[in-house]
């Protein structure tokens, strides 16, 4: 009796786990279809938000000793989560060009990564959706921009840091 009760105690979780996992089946099916039918470039763009052209652009301008700073100047915990996720994805996709990747949610945080030693080696991936310059002192060259859906990203190379 005890054995049956113990087994039932554990096995009672199966319907809950099945229900929970089952919720993920439609999504998993869609992902599986995408995995089997879409190119890697499309899947990367959909998952990471970076097109093959942008990836090539960044790799062309960044060395292993460079630095990539992902900048999204919108506040709130939701935005922080999006920024962290985006920064990690960019960092891991582009590794090792560069190895050093950082993120910033406001001008002060962005400014701490801008330094003279990184001139010509630092690119800011700018998620600002308005037509504004980067809110830090220094000279930046716009390498290009990418529009994916409604989201625009601009890529700025640091040419001269404020001293």
């Amino acid at each position, binding site marked *: 009796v005890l*054995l049956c009760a*113990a087994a039932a105690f554990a*096995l009672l979780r199966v319907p809950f786990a099945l229900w929970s996992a089952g919720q993920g089946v439609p999504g998993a099916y869609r992902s599986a279809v*995408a995995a089997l039918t879409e190119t890697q470039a499309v899947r990367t763009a959909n998952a990471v938000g970076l097109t093959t052209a942008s990836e090539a652009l960044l790799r062309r301008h960044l060395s292993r000793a460079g630095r990539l700073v992902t900048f999204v100047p919108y506040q709130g915990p939701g935005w922080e989560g999006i920024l962290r996720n985006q920064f990690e994805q960019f960092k891991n996709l582009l590794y090792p060009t560069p190895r050093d990747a950082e993120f910033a949610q406001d001008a002060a945080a962005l400014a701490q990564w801008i330094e003279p030693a990184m001139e010509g080696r630092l690119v800011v991936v700018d998620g600002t959706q308005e037509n504004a310059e980067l809110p830090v002192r220094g000279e930046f060259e716009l390498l290009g921009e990418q529009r994916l859906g409604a989201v625009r990203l601009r890529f700025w190379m640091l040419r001269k840091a404020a001293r």
Partner: protein
Amino acid sequence: MTEGLLSLWILGAPALLGITVLRAIGLRFRDDRLGFVAWTWPAGCLALGIALFVYLLCGVEPWRWWWSAPLFALLATALLAAGRGKAPAGTAPPPIGRGFLLLVLALGAWCLLFAVAGAAYPVVNGDEGNIWSLKAKSLVLDWFTGDFAQAQRWNLHPDYPLLDPLLQAWVHAQTDRIAQFESRWLVQGCALSLLLATAASLRARLPARHAGLLLLLLPFARPFVQASQTAYADGMVALGVLLALDGALRFCADGRAAWAWLAAIGAAFALWSKNEATLYLAAAAGAVLVWLALRRPRTGGAVLRLLPAAILPLAVLVAQRLFNHHFGLHNDLFGANPGGRTLLSVIAGQFGERAPAVLARAGRVLFASGEPHALFGVLLLAPLLWRRAAFARELLPVWLWLASSLLGLHVVYLGSFLPIEFHLDTSYVRVLFQLLPAAMLWFAVLARAQLAGSDGLPTTADARAAA
């Protein structure tokens, strides 16, 4: 066409290696059909990982790594030839049963669905991207430029063991590029292997109906789905731990050296997958010592005969420690944390603050959640529920090992430098999952003993009789 053949080679090489390794240690398909299929994968991945590790140390560049499989197959075949005379005649396999096989196939399809779904995303997210895949990329891209050690400062856990990254590096090397989608294939294969190995271990102890019911605890667990989709190493640890326990129990049942070697392969596989396995090894050593001291078991000689096989996991452990020491890679629990404090001092400093949170989470997950981890609740209550059986003969060290491993995991949370709720939210269920298949096997052995009205260790012959 070429890509298809390449994929076949990437996946086929470890499978062929695994078959050769299993044959070399004296296991035959007829020993356990389902088990043999399951064990092939970790055995092959371990052999491949050792080959690639040796190649890295010897400076063999990735474009030559395709040699690994044939070379190690050759070595294993030589071992096989050397050991052929000593292999005892195999026994008839326990019948799998058509219904049970259909269930396993259906659950395998479930696992494959999530494995294919994983290929919609590159290996850049979470720990998969920040730890495992980053290390794999570094092995291929930084090792031969001479700045591997320096590059590890960008890894969240630079000291984590190498098997998972090596298996991903194998794919990078074979495709001659950083394979952002395919690199997790071999690691994902471990989830399927885990399902099959668990099914085989349960079926060897229980009638098909009971084994099938118990097996359902595994595939719908969130960490199993995650293991099917990603290159997280927790599924690999679970697989290695299960193999170690299954092999050890089979060895205790019939004394065949092949089972001891299977246990050794499992232990080495787990130890080289993630650091928690070192804790489990220490817990196992403690449990066996307590068992020997308390019971003076008649199988004590069998434990001594396990020792030659124990060289394999110990060698893996030492090699990984030496590797980390050489490159200055340190563990965050042992000083490499923002405060530079040791585990004991961190635990002492934050015990009062963290213990209630850890206990509350344990109580919720083990007793009051929808997680199959509820089986750990049964495990912890076993001495109260089945006083004689839980402490009887071979079940005692298994219980002691699992219980002390669980305790150890909770102590780690007390000593973590991460915010406790964040650490528990992001890893607790996943890390405890590493012990779930082993706990399922423990329950199967206990159930078999209870159903048979004995406190002895059931064997595959018992399962045949039950069937």
